[in-house]
């Protein structure tokens, strides 16, 4: 799929005939897997959750209306709900994956040197709520815009921004204690 119009065409076809959904499945399978794989440790659980996300997306495809976000955002929104439900039901400990290469903007935001941040980030994250973790992941580990974060987490763009900066303030306080 080379363009948004091509993707939209594909969605319209899938809304008419489910077999056309396979093109969307092929296109986004890897990115949805990675999205869930960063949040869930067990590979079999990841596979189950990914299939649940796409089954739910296929089931609801007729309700999908373009809102100015990529189709993948809609899939991430379903995936986010599935992951939260998975942790509520299983009582397992939530996995948070830090990829050092994608944390540079967090270092800049917290006025920290990356080498210093590396030492304390893992400890400081334990002080955040589940929603704050999601905000940090989406914004700083996955580089999503606030508008897209708001769409995925079903809050307004402004609310996503305010909550993210509150989480950053909380992290800064913890960094100063932990350093």
């Amino acid at each position, binding site marked *: 799929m080379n363009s948004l119009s091509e993707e939209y065409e594909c969605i319209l076809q899938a809304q008419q005939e*489910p077999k056309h*959904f*396979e093109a969307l*499945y*092929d296109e986004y*399978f*890897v990115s949805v*897997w*990675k999205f869930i*794989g*960063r949040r869930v*440790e067990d*590979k*079999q659980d990841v*596979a*189950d959750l*990914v*299939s*649940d996300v*796409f*089954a*739910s997306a*296929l*089931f*609801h495809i007729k*309700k999908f209306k373009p809102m100015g976000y990529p189709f993948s955002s809609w899939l991430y929104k*379903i995936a986010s*709900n*599935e992951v939260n*439900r998975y942790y509520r*039901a299983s*009582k397992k*400990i*939530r*996995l*948070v*994956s*830090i*990829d*050092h290469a994608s944390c540079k903007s967090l270092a800049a935001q917290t006025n920290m040197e990356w080498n210093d941040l*590396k030492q304390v980030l*893992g400890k400081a*994250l*334990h*002080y955040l709520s589940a929603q704050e*973790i999601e905000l940090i992941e989406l914004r700083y580990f996955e580089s999503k815009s606030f508008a897209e974060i708001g769409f995925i987490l079903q809050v307004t763009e402004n609310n996503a921004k305010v909550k993210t900066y509150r989480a950053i303030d909380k992290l800064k306080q913890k960094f100063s204690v932990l350093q």
Partner: protein
Amino acid sequence: MKKMKKYKITENREELSEQEINAHKNFALITSKSKHMKSNQLLKTGIGLAAVSIVILGAIYFFSKKKNGSTENNASAYSGVPFSKYQINPAKDTLLVTSIGSLIEIPAGAFTDEKGNPVSGMVNLHFREFHHPAEIILSDVPMVYDSADTQYHFESAGMFEIQADLNSRPVNIAEGKQLQVRLVTLDTNKTKFNQYYMSDKNSPWQYTGRDAVSLLTKESLSADKRVPAKEEKLVKPVLMDKNKKQFRVETDLEAFPELALFREVLFEVSDKEKNYDARNADKEWEQIEIERTKVFGEYLISLHKGDETIQMLAKPVAKDLSKILEDYNKKKQADDTYFYGAGMQNDLSRKLIEEREIADKMFDKFQKSKAYADYLMNQVSITQDYVYRTFQVNRFGFYNSDCPNNLPTPGLIAAGFAYKDGNAMKVKKLFLVEHNRNAAFALYDTKMVFFNPKAANSLVVITDKNEVGLFSKEEFGKLDKSVKNFVFQPEIYPNKEDMVNELIPAL
């Protein structure tokens, strides 16, 4: 204090390659899961329409049977869990104990009529509880929960339905009042479950909050002073002494139910009052208060006028004993029967006979369902003491302690069904029971059996003839887990009234 680790943090975790990820692609599974969701929703609508009829017919059946003072069965095509009926005096605090030990606490003044006015007269409380997948399946209770447009299946740690009426008219729970149900639980997991409410089978389940698990020992239960059933006594009427002073006091029999046998209460000054001035009985008093003393049948009467207050000990007496002693003796005879703590009303003897009949019928039913009772009691005894899940009830309907799950995976069999003689079986409903958790998954596409190969599974089918069929966990266990197509041949149980009791030990 050291902060507890809330998350498992990994740094620079190695991700699977795109090739490894793509190896997990299975679009056929996606379409079959989605198709299942679709048939699930269609059938749910169908069930919804059917449930309207069931509820209406059920209501007619419910109220017409009640006139005979019997227990009721729900009106599904096959027999589910019957209601137990209790008669409650709404003016009193009441604690009911169900046959397996669940507790229902009802505060005084808990019921109102349709206009919101407090009710008087005996309220019929109907209660049934569900602990086993067979009870849920055969009672036709929908166990699907919608969250964010996604459907989940409930794994239950206990569920109950509670309803009430007064003279066949519905009653409501008064604003600001709530009943408390402490449901015996067979799953003692403290953190896994949430609580959900459903007003009727045609409505969706609603999340109401986290679950509350508590332990109550048998000793603490028997020490509970709010148990009124065995405490209930009536003051034996005695004839007044014509040589002593009596005075009439308007007595609220709801506040003093022990005086219910007195048709007109006269108080006679106690012999303990040596210095009583007899002229007090002839005075006009502005306010009279009655209080119980430690001695049963003795009361402290306070008379007020302006600044003047006098107090005296007195006992209730009657002008004519013949009729009320007859009532009293009947009551004494019936005292050893199963009695739910209901207060005495004017039609005392009739109510006692009714209650005795109900108790007999319940006992009879209990005997018949011995397998069921044994199963439940064995389960409960494992926990040593009673472990309860506590529900605050402020409206009537279904209450459930549940954990939502997706359909089991990754096992999937394209299923056919046949009788043991090889004839094709038409399956109307299909349920997968997972034995390591208390879950009955409704498989709305009866041609596909989703299952977890690592779990012990059974299949329960309802045929087009309303027969109940069981493909046991032993038979399921023998299946080759990689099989893709299979014709299941369930054991058939003919439809009968106490099907629940047959199915529980078999399942």
